[in-house]
């Protein structure tokens, strides 16, 4: 008898709401030449879809919902919100 299934226990998983990238109307595009690696976009992203590798940032477009907080907070306006095709 699988004890774990007697009561609802859920396992950690990305995309618990599916591919939330489909929710976007606008997508953030980072202009690396303007980026000063302050990491504010990374810390402010509610979704955790600003990926940080060392101090570089990129967007996880699979799950990014396009809320625009990163673009709004970027001190050098290095992120543009571009209409999705």
């Amino acid at each position, binding site marked *: 008898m699988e004890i774990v299934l007697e*009561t609802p226990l859920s396992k950690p998983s990305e995309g618990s709401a599916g591919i939330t990238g489909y929710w976007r109307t606008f997508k953030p595009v980072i202009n690396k030449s303007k980026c000063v690696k302050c990491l504010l976009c990374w810390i402010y992203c509610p979704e955790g879809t600003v990926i940080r590798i060392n101090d570089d940032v990129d967007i996880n477009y699979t799950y990014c919902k396009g809320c625009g907080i990163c673009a709004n907070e970027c001190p050098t306006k290095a992120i543009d919100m571009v209409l999705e095709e």
Partner: protein
Amino acid sequence: MRIVLTGNHAVAYAALLSRVEVVAAYPITPQTQIVEKLAEFIEGGRLKARYIRVESEHSAMAAIIGASAAGARTFTATASHGLTYMNEMVFWAGNARLPIVMAIVCRALAPPWNIWTEHTDILAQRDTGWIQFFCEDNQEVLDTVIQAFRIAEDDRVLLPVMVGLDAFILSHTATPIDVPDQEDVDRFLPPRKPLPFILDVNNPLTHSNMTYPDQTMEFRYRLQKAMERARRVIVEVDEEYGRLTGRRYGGLLDCYKCEDADLGVIIMGSSAGDAKEAVDKLRDEGYKPGVVRIRVFRPFPKEELKEICGKFKAIAVIDRDLSPGLGGILHAETLASIYDLRSRPVVQNCIAGLGGRDIRVEDFKLIIKELYRGIEENIEIPPIRWIGVKGE
């Protein structure tokens, strides 16, 4: 060891011997001596446990759920309004399948304020997924609470258990009790296993997030299956406890002089003792009644009851409770159990003892004799009667 104990103190001793680890309780008459005695045991160092002096019964059950989910063996006790206040979390514990044990000192609900025995409070919890016991005397109270932990934690069961004892009749009346040795109880009751789950940072799981209709019904089904398996486990545990202590209670039902009886009194709780005395007296007069004491109300002993009732010409179902608009709760469940019998007995529902009113041996004798008379003289037997109610 033989000690003179009230029912409340018997509960406390059972929790002590069962090595409970976290207690969270809120006082309510007539349960207060349970929590006071446990506080004494814990603060006196006799019981190594945490006592959470919660600010309400709802929080008591919530704290116990948290503690049980974190892996502790947990215990609480309440009565009447405490139980109905806690009701939301009682359902939660049942559906969460946590092996919690709770003592209920069965007491009437208000209005009016009434602190004496009635079973409506505990029976109102019958749909929560808890196993429910009703005890006849203080010895059974102590033994059943210990058995309750064993049953709840059995991996075939994993259901919370409530043990009912009647207000004042058992809770506050002192009788000599055989208290088993700690070594014997330790052999009978091993430490709790981490079932059905444990909150563990090394294996992070989320308990009970949103679950859609296509997934939820299975959990209800499994809860029912667990209840069905519990029938066998309850009997096994009673047998094993009997081998350990010499005391066994018949599993789900306690039959008194039913083997050759032709009329049965179906009853729960402490007044079964008076029913048994009435049966003895009437047997001296040549009648052959018997008492079927329902020890376990959930899971309801449908098959066992049906088998016994097949021999009876008539049964009186004594309800110390009321479901207004229906009648007695035990009565309704008994009728459901005997429905399939080819030849069904005459059934009379006797509502008695509400609000703690005495049910005397004389009352039982009257009920039984009038049932016999009704059958012999072929007169109409009222399907429901209220015992001792003025103006009925």
